């Protein structure tokens, strides 16, 4: 592309940018398909104790369409971040398939290629930047690893700094400790974008920022998504933020997906009692409308020994004997892709509040 001379009053385009890995599956092919994703951590209980396992992520399946933003919400410890790390292949998984744009990772798509196509922004903006490298060097590292010449990668890094709203002349040569948290998170976003990914996983990327900065970074993410045609997987415990940015949302509880669907539909008509409790727990900005009664009681059970059946039945106000038996499967509610794993939402399941089975009188 270097032979193209940029117009004088146009911003110089990024030369030598890494081309995103090409779209192979077409529009209808989801960018990411995850099925049966499972991660169990062994916990050694001492020399003579039986070793146990933490079921951090248990049989999680979902897909992300191209250009979509999917949110994952849930309490801390429900497996959100573990899911992100499994998708990034930063830790080995026990089971499950990850298909990127129709290509099985490891077979049709090498791990190295996957890393070009999928990047991640971490929660801790300080810990995720090398304190010994300048901001420019941190951003240029990825492209350099993938074979870009060093001067070109530095030019790209400066270009991207501008894209995330940091003037390159002021920031390129600074160290991470010399800039604020919001600026650092912008740098982390630029670093993720440096490989021209198509999917960016944002693992609590704005959670550590204060509200005004958070809003600015969220708007930046929206702008970047439009400019680069990105797809986001947005992990957060902040329901307002998830609603603002997401098209679809996944609700996780103790390592399982309990509900998923279009964000407005889940918000307006939550089908799983856990989702209802989560939404009820959202603080209101109206002082006359405070939450007076706790929407849910108790702590999440220990994931080392999760309850049988529906994992939520120990805290669920509607639990019936049925709920402690077999695990309810994610079942479609209506036609819009809204699904819930609750016997109350499954027609004819035998739960007293379940809708009657179709065809039954």
């Amino acid at each position, binding site marked *: 592309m270097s032979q193209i001379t940029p117009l004088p009053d146009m911003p110089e385009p990024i030369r030598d940018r890494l081309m995103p890995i090409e779209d192979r599956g077409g529009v209808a092919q989801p960018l990411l398909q995850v099925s049966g994703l499972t991660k169990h951590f062994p916990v050694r209980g001492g020399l003579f104790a039986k070793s146990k396992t933490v079921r951090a992520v248990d049989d999680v399946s979902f897909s992300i369409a191209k250009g979509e933003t999917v949110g994952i919400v849930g309490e801390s410890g429900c497996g959100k971040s573990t899911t992100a790390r499994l998708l990034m292949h930063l830790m080995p998984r026990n089971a499950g398939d990850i298909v990127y744009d129709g290509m099985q990772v490891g077979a049709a798509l090498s791990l190295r290629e996957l890393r070009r196509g999928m*990047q*991640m922004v971490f929660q801790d903006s300080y*810990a995720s930047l090398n*304190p*010994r490298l300048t901001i420019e060097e941190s951003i240029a*590292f990825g492209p350099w690893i993938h074979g870009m010449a060093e001067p070109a990668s530095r030019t790209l890094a400066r270009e991207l700094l501008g894209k995330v709203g940091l*003037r390159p002349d*002021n920031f390129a040569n600074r160290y991470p400790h010399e800039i604020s948290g919001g600026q650092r998170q912008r740098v982390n976003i630029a670093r993720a974008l440096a490989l021209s990914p198509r999917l960016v996983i944002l693992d609590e990327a704005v959670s550590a920022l204060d509200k005004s900065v958070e809003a600015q*970074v969220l708007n930046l993410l929206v702008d970047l998504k439009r400019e680069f045609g990105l797809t986001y997987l947005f992990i957060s415990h902040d329901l307002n933020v998830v609603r603002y940015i997401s098209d679809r949302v996944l609700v996780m509880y103790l390592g399982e997906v309990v509900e998923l669907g279009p964000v407005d539909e889940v918000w307006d008509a939550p089908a799983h009692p856990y989702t209802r409790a989560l939404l009820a727990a959202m603080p209101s900005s109206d002082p006359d409308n405070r939450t007076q009664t706790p929407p849910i009681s108790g702590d999440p059970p220990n994931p080392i020994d999760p309850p049988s059946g529906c994992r939520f039945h120990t805290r669920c106000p509607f639990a019936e004997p049925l709920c402690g038996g077999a695990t309810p499967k994610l079942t479609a509610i209506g036609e819009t892709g809204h699904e819930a794993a609750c016997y109350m939402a499954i027609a004819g399941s035998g739960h007293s509040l379940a809708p009657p089975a179709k065809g039954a009188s």
Partner: protein
Amino acid sequence: MSAMSDTALQAAPAGKARGYWKTVGRRILRDKVSMVCALVLILIFVSALCAPWLGLADPYQGSMIRRLRHIGTPNYPLGTDELGRDMLARLVYGGRLSLLIGILPVILAFLIGTSFGLIAGYVGGKVNTAIMRTIDIFYAFPSVLLAIAISGALGAGIVNSIVSLTVVFVPQITRVAESVTTGVRNMDFVEAARASGARSFTIMRIHMLGNVLGPIFVYATGLISVSMILAAGLSFLGLGTKPPEPEWGLMLNTLRTAIYVNPWVAALPGVMIFAVSICFNLLSDGMRSAMDIRN
């Protein structure tokens, strides 16, 4: 670019690009204590290196009639020892051996221990267990005892005492290196580097080494004083240097008989050991704070 409204754009222009080590260097140059210590050490080093050209008396030439002269005696500014040899010459010449067996074991142990520690910390798992449990065995012995035992088994001599001191320090440096490496390895920026597709060796070189070497280096510098004292102790016990070789520990040993007759002269080798040790210690403290560029 609606998100560009914040203070992000108004930060003061940063100065010229300065590397991390340049910044550290500038900071240590401003630290007076470290600079004084460095000056003292340089003085001792240079005088030890240039001893034959300084016009000093022969450090081996003794005399029965001028034994144990006091400090300040004409021609003998620092007095003479129990065999009438010039103390100034012996102290300067003694620095050559003392510094060698004080510093060389730490350098060797730094190289060996850092490699072990990096591998144990980065690879983790069974490799870590194997290396660290082996290291633990050495920890079961007090370091002085271990040095004496190894030197005793290998026999007296300079090379053997260097070997034994190296063996004493390898476990300590390995442990520090391992814990620093493990800490850095679990940082998000290493994960991010892995996520960008970098190979282990590249991550080690670019992301780990710079963050790991500093603390290990500081720790090793602190060990030099310990090494000097242990080396002196070995010589004192007759396991290191042999008479009439000038070496501070050995000189302390032979002058001990004169401690009631001429205590000031007898204490001089100890003063040298003390000065070098404390200078290395303060210097390592200064480096530690200079490398913490966050403050």
